[in-house]
């Protein structure tokens, strides 16, 4: 699945990025690349066994959530 996400990131990068580059929309291209880079980082961190951002959020808020809800 990780490989599929990397492949999809590359495909989206090419399909969306090339027209943006040709039109000179550099800001759009930067945001697009950042989002794709974040997706890549997520799967890479998962592959390396690092916690995801939501897991970190969970560690932070779980005591509060469990104190309030059953």
């Amino acid at each position, binding site marked *: 699945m990780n490989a599929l996400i990397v492949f999809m990131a590359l495909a989206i990068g090419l399909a*969306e990025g090339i027209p943006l580059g040709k039109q000179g929309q550099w800001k759009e291209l930067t945001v697009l690349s950042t989002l794709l880079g974040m997706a890549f980082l997520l799967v890479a961190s998962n592959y390396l066994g690092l916690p995801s951002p*939501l897991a970190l959020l969970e560690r932070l808020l779980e005591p509060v959530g469990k104190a309030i809800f059953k």
Partner: protein
Amino acid sequence: MPEKGIINTKQFTWLLFIIITGFAVMQIPGMLIMQAGRDAWLSVLVAWFLDVMLAIVYAYMGIRFPGENFVQYSITILGKHLGRMVGILFPLFFLLVCTIVLRGSSQIVSNVFLPTTPLNLILVSSYVVCALIGRKGIEVIARVTEVLGPLFFLSIIIVCLLVLPDFHIARMKPQFDEGIAPFLVGAPLMLTSFGVCIIMAMYIPLCNRPENAFLAKFSAVSMGALVVGLITALSVGIFGFEDAQYMYSPGLQLAKMINFSNYLERVEMVWLLVLVGSTIVASSSLLWAFGQGLAQIAGLKNYQPLIYPGALLSLALCIVSFPSSLQQTHFYHYIYPIVAAFVETGLELFLFATALILGKRGTA
């Protein structure tokens, strides 16, 4: 090109209804019953009231800052830098909700329709459809909800009517056996699910009659509360709260109950088709809001190139963070309500108070 689509009040209402119900009808009734027991239906009532109160603030802000959504008016109120830091939390929240909704609906599809198909395949297919719809823009999503919304509403009402003969009022008694605390604690759990319709602030500038925003929200949340309240009350009255609290989707179990002399059965398939359609449209709307919000924060001319990467990011988050449905349910039950309360209520009230204190108004 920024979003040029225009929606009318009816479409506004159905857009909100689909988002509220698609999100709240799947897993929330079970969690609510676990929290509030037999009094769970009262939590829905309290949450409905609180959400309507919150809608007044959102509708007021939409009129005070005409032509601006909350991402834009956070920049107007707080300035370029702080406004962007606060404003980006809204699109990120929509991406999180999209992740939770699609993970939940894919799990149901996997459990009921396609038990031998890998869950990841269902997830990828759902995301592809959502991204395709989201990229088409708000007008397309709104027109789809005009068809799906009434169908969804009617299907739930019909399911509720068909299971009514199995309802035992004795299973709802005694009410308040543990006092009022359980249902009062259940109310914020429900409120944070209804609260997803803060997305109304993204629709107000695109509505042909922005002054009708409150009416649209009121109608949508009232229908949503009716549907969730009915499913919650019927689940308790039919299965008993001891069993209903552990069900992944009590609404689905209710639909499975329908069997009239082997003549009318497997109704859950029809209901699930509508439910899955609704969650996909709701998710595409959330992806659209993510792309639109992020484009406005970054000052882009066009939001459309951000929809596919947004969908991919959400898919990656979904696969990495929720490898099993247990983890998703745990996150949804204990973590999501706190995050949602902060974004839906805390941030908006902060913006509202700051706008009043600094005397900021929209210029359009």
